[in-house]
């Protein structure tokens, strides 16, 4: 479903992604972990081409993303993304945040779009906030709206870019619960960048460990957290656990 082949990415002289090879199957939940600046987010953002490749091949949903001629707007309908800083539209009410893409991209009627939107708002547990502005919601609620905005397009793949890193500690749980339920009940293909190791261990089919732009280790969750092969993965984990 997602296939990286020898992908390289540079920001100016800085080599952010080095020879990335990775395959993700349909229905799989893959969690990418690693120290800050290791290229996790960049890797994730390549999947819906918020970042372009410098070289190599990346095929997602049978679409070759290294080909500049593809219809990118068409392609992006099938991929939802949730950002660290939510990126809700502050001038639109919660419901209007969610129905914009269904109306403008899928050309749904407003009533139909609203029905679908309410279904997903209920799903993330905040249907009573539909007619509030984002600024009237807590961080955790805003992030749940962002998840609903991603789900409403009924995507084949959901991407989560550090979805809880900007949240107060007491709100992390409510967001992780929603993602966990997507993983367990919907069997959706998901790629998640996170620093929540307990969550990663529980939800991931596979763990991808990155450092300095390289994938150092790919293993099942129990293998990785039980006995990571790589020395750097071991130090990374021990630092997180012993702080």
């Amino acid at each position, binding site marked *: 479903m997602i296939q990286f082949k020898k992908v390289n990415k540079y920001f100016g002289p800085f080599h952010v992604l080095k020879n990335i090879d990775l395959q993700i199957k349909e229905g799989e939940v893959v969690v990418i972990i690693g120290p800050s600046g290791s290229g996790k987010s960049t890797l994730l953002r390549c999947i819906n081409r*918020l970042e372009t490749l410098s070289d190599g091949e990346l095929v997602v949903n049978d679409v070759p993303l290294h080909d500049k001629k593809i219809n990118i*707007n068409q392609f992006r309908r099938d991929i*939802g993304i949730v950002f660290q*800083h939510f990126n809700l539209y502050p001038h639109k009410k919660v419901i209007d945040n969610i129905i*914009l893409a269904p109306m403008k*991209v899928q050309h749904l009627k407003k009533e139909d779009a609203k029905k679908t939107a309410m279904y997903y708002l209920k799903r993330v547990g905040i249907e009573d906030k539909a007619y509030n*502005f984002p600024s009237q919601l807590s961080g955790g609620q805003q992030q749940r709206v*962002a998840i609903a*905005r991603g789900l409403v397009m009924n995507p084949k793949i959901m991407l989560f870019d550090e979805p809880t890193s900007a949240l107060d500690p007491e709100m992390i749980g409510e967001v992780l619960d929603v993602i966990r339920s997507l993983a367990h009940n919907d069997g959706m293909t998901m790629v998640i960048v996170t620093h929540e190791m307990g969550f990663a261990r529980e939800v991931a089919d596979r763990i991808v460990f990155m450092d300095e732009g390289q994938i150092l280790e790919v293993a099942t969750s129990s293998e990785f957290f039980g006995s990571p092969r790589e020395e750097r993965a071991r130090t990374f984990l021990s630092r997180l656990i012993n702080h």
Partner: protein
Amino acid sequence: MGNFDVMLVFDHWDRYMAGFINTIQISIIALIGSFILGAIIAIFRIAPLKPLNWFGTAYVEVIRNIPLLIVVFFFYLGLPSLGIELDGFVSGTLGLTVYTASFIAEAIRAGIQAIPTGQTEAARATGLSYLQTMTHIILPQAIKIVLPAIGNQFINLVKNSSILAVVAGMDLMYYADLINSDTFLPLTVYTFVALFYLVLTVPLSYAVLYMEKCFNIADN
């Protein structure tokens, strides 16, 4: 009251009104023209195409950094040597439009760029096109930031229109000069001219304030 004669405004009412109405026309034409031109230049400056960026930057940096009088003289005195004859009204209004557009372009560009890139990313990631993202997400947010700056430019524009007096542009200031040379009562003549300008600019500044307030209410 040898130096100040209130009745003067009534004696010369026709000429005051002729100038006043022309100044309103000049202002409205230049206001619409400079907004459209300014918006185009702003889009040139941020569009993902290098030659457009260069053109936009060159326009802004050249035009806003030379005196308005020289821009107007270019149209009034410069173009005739290229075979294009324009009267004072047209060349003055053109100069004013071209000049004000450079400031408006900067205000619009700054407003658009003040919107966090995350907004564009979120919109594009759901499959919205560049144009849809601009119209539904970026511009509605940018307009709130831009409005006070543009309002100030419009007030400046009305005041700057007095430069047309120099090129016989038939505006309020031009007629004031005529009345003054007939009456030799400069204090009276120009005090009334100032009042006529205030009649235009004060409502304009309140209109800007009102619009800002409306947008703030819509926001929360």
